[in-house]
């Protein structure tokens, strides 16, 4: 399996090249779901519950239906009878979730009825005419109360608010804690935030009565989306056609509008005309079911005098909200990097997912890894502070060493490759760490609160399914393949076909670059299109930082099949062995005889038109499909709960310098460096862009963004006035320092990078803030560390 990669030998990979996608976006020619004009389309608006928990007594729709331009009002009674519940990942069949509530509502914002009208404005008018009578019932908002017996149950049929709990022990944990000289415990809290793309979720559907096919266009990023939509709609899979040639205006994990899609698909089929639902911002924030992890970590760590880490206990309580799709799995993915980049031989992990009367949680960039990294990195800093050691020294002492790779961690995953010390050193050099220390200390002497934060974090990538059977034994999924078709037409032009939509990751650039690299043809001339879901290109969508590895691997595999065919045609016609054919730039010649040569055009013409010149056994036409299986995949968890989950592991080292204004408590990130190793970068501009963006997103999670709830169950932050996204004024200039340790498991030595930056930024920023607060003996371990939280911490310490 291992291969030796020399990035210098690549022709297109790793080079500064423009992307294929950018020109259509800068000229306003993107094609997002809201841009798709279906003739006669009608619009949906939604009635949302004002109560976090209530019984629905009655719904009066007459006035709404009487409004001119209104075509239909759908309630849960009809909808739940005619569709099946949405898929749930964990084993909790009684936590049934439908697009519309029936009989009871379980969070403020839950959809109770859908109006279909000629325009969105009329649909909204009609929403206001629908009278719903509710009988409020007790609710639970605090996850620590929800987890205890005796309080309100979000789903009484489930018997408990706990929807997932596991107790994993890997290695001699109690022994490590008994022997270690030092032990520390701390609680850190990751706030409820999300990726909040600037485009809300949208979906349009049209029932083709002649073909008996439901066509769907959606701003989607979701594995198994067509299958799940078909299943809930009680349609065979081949009666649902999802069009993936829709540009998605950002996702970073959350664009999983399965609930919206089943609703709109049902309406389109039921009513016989196209229907669309484009969320407005409040629907998105409150009822779009897209909140991210909301997690309380109780950490315990055992360590020696010299900072050597001996054992770690992580108890994580995640508030998944009122329903669960895949969200509890976000406690499972971090198992694949549960010790971070450190040599920790003994780990206890107790993940618990609890239901509350809040908007449901959905997959968010990193799938639970960013909160886990934050918890581990705060723990490391607390160890350093306890021992009065330099936090960098504690990290250096415990980081896995270059020569130890491949490195098997206690929970069963093997890290493929890395040089963590080198990346950290590069980041420290780039920021001029000695000078930074002086800057901080000078600032402190001048009366400022100033701090330096470090984090060294892993980015598991190549997205595989191993956490599913680990958390749900009834799920024996072991593959998350991806695929690509490459075809060369009679004109000699190349087309790559992929089977999923993209939300900014530049997959057309990825596919064309890889095909161009293998076939030695200019990537700019290669077109990349997207098969719809009936055209049989298996994909598990761009989740888990997987596409450079998986789609890149599939595109390379298909291109290699084409290249092999061309070489066979050349050998047959040049009357030489396959081994003696020299392939260059798409042309073929006999090695050592450059005059005995066939051009690309000649080879293509034979493949398409001249079967008499084809070697026996080779299909005419030039088209090849390759389905790529996740490297290291294919195994179920062992009896001791060890499992290889993701194949590849990128690494990031953040160094950030923060100053907090003594009068206003406003934090300013003055310097930011991120050392990053994701193996071979296929398109560096794309990798850097995603890393900058991930850091900006991490700044939001660390300092600004929170879906906060009142005690009576109302979302307080349903607008961009309350849910604060970092702007160019809050995000500083960032320096990324690249390092390249190729993966031995992938086609070109590439690893993933779609979650880069976000997986380490919140940890580093929290460490920087706490370093700044240390001189006043304050500490904040709850994210986001808001301006207000800082103000209060500073006031408290100033009090006599």
């Amino acid at each position, binding site marked *: 399996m291992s291969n030796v990669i020399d990035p210098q030998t690549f022709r297109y990979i790793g080079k500064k090249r423009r992307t294929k996608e950018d020109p259509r*976006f800068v000229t306003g020619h993107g094609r997002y779901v809201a841009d798709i004009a279906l003739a006669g389309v009608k619009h949906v608006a939604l009635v949302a519950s004002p109560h976090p928990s209530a019984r629905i007594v009655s719904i009066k729709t007459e006035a709404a239906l009487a409004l001119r331009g209104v075509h239909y009002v759908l309630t849960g009674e009809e909808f739940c009878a005619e569709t099946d519940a949405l898929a749930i990942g964990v084993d909790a069949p009684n936590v049934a979730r439908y697009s519309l509530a029936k009989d009871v509502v379980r969070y403020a914002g839950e959809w109770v009825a859908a109006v279909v009208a000629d325009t969105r404005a009329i649909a909204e008018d009609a929403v206001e005419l629908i009278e719903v009578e509710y009988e409020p019932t007790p609710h639970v908002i605090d996850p620590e109360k929800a987890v205890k017996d005796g309080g309100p149950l979000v789903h009484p049929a489930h018997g408990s608010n706990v929807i997932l709990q596991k107790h994993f022990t890997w290695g001699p944990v109690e022994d490590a804690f008994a022997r270690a000289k030092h032990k520390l415990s701390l609680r850190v809290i990751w706030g409820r935030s999300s990726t909040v793309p600037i485009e809300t979720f949208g979906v349009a559907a049209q029932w083709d009565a002649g073909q008996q096919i439901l066509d769907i266009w959606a701003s989607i990023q979701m594995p198994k989306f067509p299958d799940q939509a078909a299943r809930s709609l009680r349609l065979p899979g081949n009666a649902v056609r999802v069009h993936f040639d829709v540009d998605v*205006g950002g996702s970073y994990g959350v664009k999983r509008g399965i609930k919206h899609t089943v609703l709109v698909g049902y309406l389109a089929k039921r009513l016989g005309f196209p229907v669309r639902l484009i969320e407005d911002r409040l629907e998105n924030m409150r009822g779009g079911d897209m909140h991210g992890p909301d997690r309380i970590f109780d950490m315990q760590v055992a360590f020696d005098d010299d900072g050597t880490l001996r054992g770690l206990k992580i108890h994580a309580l995640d508030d998944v909200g009122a329903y669960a799709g895949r969200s509890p799995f976000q406690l499972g993915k971090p198992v694949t990097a549960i010790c971070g980049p450190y040599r920790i031989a003994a780990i206890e992990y107790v993940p618990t997912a609890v239901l509350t009367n809040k908007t449901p949680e959905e997959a968010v960039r990193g799938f639970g890894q960013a909160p886990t990294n934050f918890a581990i990195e705060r723990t490391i800093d607390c160890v350093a502070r306890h021992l009065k050691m330099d936090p960098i020294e504690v990290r250096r002492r415990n980081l896995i060493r270059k020569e130890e790779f491949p490195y098997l961690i206690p929970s069963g995953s093997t890290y493929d490759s890395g040089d963590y010390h080198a990346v950290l050193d590069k980041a420290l050099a780039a920021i001029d760490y000695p000078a930074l220390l002086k800057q901080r200390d000078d600032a402190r002497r001048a009366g400022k609160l100033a701090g330096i934060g470090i984090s060294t974090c892993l980015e598991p990538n190549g997205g595989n399914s191993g956490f599913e059977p680990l958390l749900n034994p009834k799920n024996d999924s072991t593959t998350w393949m991806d695929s690509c078709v490459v075809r060369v037409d009679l004109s000699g032009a190349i087309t790559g076909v992929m089977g999923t939509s993209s939300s900014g990751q530049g997959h057309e650039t990825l596919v064309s670059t890889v095909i161009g690299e293998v076939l030695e043809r200019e990537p700019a001339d290669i077109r990349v299109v997207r098969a719809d879901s009936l055209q049989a290109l298996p994909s598990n969508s761009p989740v888990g930082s997987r596409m450079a590895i998986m789609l890149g691997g599939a595109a390379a595999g298909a291109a290699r099949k084409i290249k092999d065919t061309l070489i066979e045609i050349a050998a047959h016609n040049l009357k030489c062995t396959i081994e003696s054919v020299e392939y260059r730039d798409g042309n073929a010649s006999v090695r050592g005889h450059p005059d005995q040569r066939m051009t690309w055009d000649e080879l293509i013409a034979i493949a398409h038109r001249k079967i008499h010149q084809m070697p026996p056994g080779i299909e005419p036409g030039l088209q090849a499909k390759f389905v790529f299986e996740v490297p290291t995949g294919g195994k179920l968890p062992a009896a001791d709960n060890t499992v290889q989950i993701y194949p590849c592991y990128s690494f990031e080292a953040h160094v950030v310098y923060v100053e907090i204004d003594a009068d206003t408590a406003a934090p300013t990130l003055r310097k930011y460096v991120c050392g990053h190793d994701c193996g071979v970068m296929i398109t560096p501009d794309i990798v850097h862009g995603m890393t900058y963006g991930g850091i*900006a997103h991490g700044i939001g999670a660390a300092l600004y963004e929170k879906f906060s709830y009142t005690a009576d169950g109302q979302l307080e932050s349903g*607008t961009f006035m309350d849910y604060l996204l970092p702007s160019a004024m809050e995000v500083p200039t960032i320096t990324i320092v690249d390092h390249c340790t190729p993966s031995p498991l992938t086609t070109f030595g590439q690893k993933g990078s779609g979650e880069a930056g976000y997986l380490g930024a919140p940890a580093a920023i929290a460490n920087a803030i706490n370093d700044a607060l240390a001189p006043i003996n304050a500490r904040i371990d709850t994210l986001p560390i808001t301006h207000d939280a800082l103000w209060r911490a500073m006031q408290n310490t100033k009090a006599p």
Partner: protein
Amino acid sequence: MSETLYPVTLEVNGVLHTARVPARLSLVDCLRDELRLTGTHIGCEHGICGACSVMLDGEPVRSCLMFAVQADGHKVTTVEGLTNADGTPGILQDSFCEKHALQCGYCTSGMLIAAHALLQTVKRPTDEQIREAIGGNLCRCTGYQQIVDAVKHAAARLGEKGR
């Protein structure tokens, strides 16, 4: 209840358009749904994200916060109007491609309008001026860095062209 429609005439990207619209129709909905200029995007509909930015008589405005009838008789420039006459990307748009100043492309139209407005008045903006100019436009993909680079790049190219 049938809504009263009002005639509006807009000069959009140098072309006169007429439409009959309800009073409550926002300018962005008019541009997108009536005129089918879908390059301008809707992000928040409450004036924060800036995705719907367009130029109105030479000033950047939020087209979600304005009614189409208020724009009657005015000149609007959208992202489609920033191209060269042949439809190829203009210098600012091309600079966004050169520096990969976008990923999903959704906020890009508004970013381009904000940057275009800046470059109308400041020929060689500093990083700080660029960040302030795009400070009212939210992007979730890029962390803004390559956008700042692209605007600087465009300013330099426009400066060379102007010499």
